């Protein structure tokens, strides 16, 4: 990301209005989602659309793609009024959209998803699959997406599924490309790839509307920023002339503080959870770490590094092939998540739709699920009144925007759904909480609130594992950061030694090459090359605390060269 931002080339046709949205109103039962919203998209620009959770961003995009019809208001594309009647119609008009919640068919392959409805025909039945895969492969190559056309989409990680969505949207010859939080599941490197795709896409005839809660990337990718609050237009600023503070205060109506780093690590606190030599058939090898009482332990790594796999293996959602887990000094076997819950270990999944929510049930029902028997029942009978009061309390402390605790979760905005999953785990009294991308899709103001809640939990003596693709968030929250790459732990950094560069270095280390890597730099091999030797290394595991953190050493060595 050096000098030229293709999207900001000076010779773009500034005055050409590509898309105009005027006075759009849309209400749902009990909610006024949009209340006289307008915005303009010029040819050749990337317009960022920002606003709090539930402000109405996704609703506006669903109107543009014809999923809902507006109560009133007009859309104009190239000066002509349009009324998108459905997603297919919108695509024909030249509006392509990547939805916040995926619209992929999990049982189909990447190629089938990419070219759905546009499968090559007229060829003999048997060769069609090959042709399909070839075309999809060519498309993926053109877009530079590292995906196998034959892979089943349901088996992909969230980040890869996101790439399939992006590929699908870019493959239409769209004039207007709408992206609803495309980077929520991506880490910085993947975000870079996406931004490259966007710059490649934008020409004077096309434009992009880009919705994101990741403020840092707005500077990077957008030309202008439009702010929406409570369904109303607040204002538009030129990105180069603004700063994030201004945008955020437009969004939330006040200035928010971005806190300094946490206190340093609490070496003295007793270890709560110890994972030793954890391995799974598919990916993990010799994963070892320790979580202390009252600690927030960050997990960093690139897509596919295995952080989610570690979490799932620890709570027994996936079988492990080797390794031991020790809880407060006693070895435990955890074969399924119910056992983990009994032991006071909770896991919040990165994928709220598939693994987090009962979409068809109410907010209160979802919040009470994990703590129902423990907290809300007497002799098997449920105390609904208690559920409602706890749900109401969490709704207000997390700022969940919903007409009531009885509203169906599927009607909430994406960020508010995420808050419901968090509320579910806050309602339960767990000693160890494993949060996988907890702030995915949550707005800046609310993120702040969640950080505060996590800090409070840690201060109360709870231990938290925080997996996140947003490095700044990890660096801000974690007392220590464990970095993974290709299924192994490549290092561990204390809060005050963790920097963006160090984490990225460890995250891109090929574990099986790290020793060679160091040798090449004419450095003495680090005393314990994190995970490079596959055999058992008892001495490393025996005294992990007193030992120097191996990865950190490797990293410092790398830095100093």
């Amino acid at each position, binding site marked *: 990301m050096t000098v030229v931002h293709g999207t900001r080339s000076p010779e773009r046709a500034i005055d050409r209005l590509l898309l105009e949205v005027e006075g759009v109103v849309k209400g749902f039962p009990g909610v006024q989602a949009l209340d006289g919203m307008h915005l303009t998209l010029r040819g050749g620009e990337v317009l960022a659309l920002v606003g709090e959770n539930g402000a109405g961003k996704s609703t506006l995009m669903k109107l543009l793609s014809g999923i809902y019809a507006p109560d009133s208001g007009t859309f104009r594309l190239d000066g002509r009024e349009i009324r998108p009647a459905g997603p297919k119609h919108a695509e024909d008009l030249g509006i392509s959209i990547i939805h916040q919640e995926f619209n992929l068919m999990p049982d189909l392959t990447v190629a089938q998803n990419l070219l759905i409805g546009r499968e090559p025909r007229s060829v003999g039945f048997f060769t069609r699959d090959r042709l399909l895969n070839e075309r999809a492969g060519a498309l993926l190559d053109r877009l530079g997406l590292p995906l196998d056309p034959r892979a089943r989409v349901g088996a992909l990680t969230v980040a890869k599924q996101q790439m399939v969505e992006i590929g699908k949207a870019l493959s239409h010859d769209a004039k207007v490309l709408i992206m609803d939080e495309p980077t929520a599941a991506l880490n910085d490197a993947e975000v870079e790839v996406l931004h490259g795709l966007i710059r490649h896409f934008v020409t004077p005839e096309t434009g992009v509307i880009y919705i994101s809660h990741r403020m840092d990337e707005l500077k990077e990718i957008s030309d202008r920023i439009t702010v929406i609050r409570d369904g109303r237009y607040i204002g538009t600023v030129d990105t180069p002339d603004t700063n994030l503070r201004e945008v955020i205060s437009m969004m939330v109506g006040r200035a928010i503080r971005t806190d300094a780093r946490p206190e340093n690590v609490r070496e003295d606190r007793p270890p709560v959870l110890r994972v030793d030599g954890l391995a799974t058939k598919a990916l993990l090898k010799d994963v070892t770490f320790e979580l202390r009482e009252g600690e927030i332990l960050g997990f960093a790594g690139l897509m596919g590094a295995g952080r989610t796999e570690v979490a799932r293996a620890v709570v027994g959602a996936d079988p492990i092939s080797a390794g031991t887990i020790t809880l407060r000094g006693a070895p435990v076997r955890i074969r399924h998540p119910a056992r983990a819950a009994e032991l006071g270990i909770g896991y919040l999944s990165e994928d709220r739709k598939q693994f987090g929510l009962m979409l068809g049930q109410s907010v209160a*029902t979802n919040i009470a*699920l994990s703590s129902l028997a423990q907290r809300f029942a007497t002799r098997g009978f449920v105390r609904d009144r208690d559920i409602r009061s706890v749900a109401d309390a969490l709704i*207000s402390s997390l700022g969940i925007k919903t007409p009531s605790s009885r509203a169906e979760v599927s009607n909430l905005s994406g960020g508010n759904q995420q808050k419901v999953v968090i509320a579910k785990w806050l309602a339960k009294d767990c000693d160890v909480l494993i949060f996988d991308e907890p702030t995915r899709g949550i707005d800046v103001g609310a993120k702040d609130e969640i950080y505060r809640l996590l800090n409070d939990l840690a201060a109360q003596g709870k231990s938290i594992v925080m997996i996140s693709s947003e490095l700044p968030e990890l660096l801000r929250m974690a007392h220590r950061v464990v970095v993974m790459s290709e299924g192994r732990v490549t290092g561990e950094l204390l809060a005050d030694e963790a920097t963006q560069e160090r984490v990225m270095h460890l995250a891109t280390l090929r574990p099986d090459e790290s020793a060679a890597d160091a040798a090449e730099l004419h450095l003495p091999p680090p005393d314990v090359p994190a995970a490079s030797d596959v055999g058992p290394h008892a001495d490393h595991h025996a005294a992990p605390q007193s030992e120097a953190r191996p990865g950190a050493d490797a990293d410092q060595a790398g830095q100093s060269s």
Partner: protein
Amino acid sequence: MTTTSEHTATPTSRMPTARTLRDRLQQLLAFASLIVIALFFTAADPIFMTFGNITNVLFSTVVIGLLALGTTFVIITGGIDLSIGTGMALCAVMSGTFVVTWGLPWPVGVLLAILFGGLIGLVNGFNVARLGLPPFISTLAMMLVAQGLALVVSHSAPIYFNDSPGYLQLSTGSLIPGLQFPNAVLVLAVATIVAGVLVRRTVLGRYTFAIGSNEEATALSGIDVSRWKIVIYTLAGLFTGLAGVMISARLGSAQPATGAGYELQAIAAVVIGGTSLSGGKGSIVGTIIGALIISVLNNGLQLMSIPQEWQNVILGVVILVAVYADQARKKAAA
């Protein structure tokens, strides 16, 4: 958090949501169709509305109703239980074996027969939850096993309860002297209330819905899904056992060869009552209304002397219409 909490719900807001309205509408609609069908039959033949005939309708609702109640739980989890029909016949045969062949006191025999139903459900639950077999397949297999066992145990002959008048009273007697309602109807009423309380008020009921809504999320929320599934299938089995007792008490005999076909009527009742076969939605009231609709149809069509074959055709069409109407309304609401 000042700004965001402004527009969140006030804790006192008691606005009924779209969802509860929708659910109530479904029940209302089912109930309205029941009334319409009943009025139609009354117009066709005034005998329909006589006390004697209504008692008949209720009698025949008992068996379908009990089976449907139990299977409602299973269907809310997103599963299915095909073994309830022949399972019921097997439980009836077992009841006959306990009471007639072994000469146990009839209350003991009844209890054992119900528990035997629970055992069938336990095996179903084990197959589904622990062995991971699809519910359709494992209960289909159980359906065949039960059918065969009923014939084996009874040597393919009916078992008569002639010497156990108490047993027969269970169905046709009348516990409340003034009211001439047969005990069977009371049994169904009590079973309905128990099922309703279980579904709406207990942890079991909540987990039943949770499993049907999103099984993986439920498991990751720390709920022992497979254990609860076993509990739920066992519960359905207990209802099957009770149905076996009630049908044999009504007929005065355990008929080993009957039973097949009841499972489909029960499932139809559940579906007509608005419980979704894909899980996560359903109600006991709906199921009972569904069971009533089916027995009213059976009874009314018989009164009109419509041949059995045509009755089946009409029943099939009613199921299609009910499910279609349900889906059309959901689509309209979305």
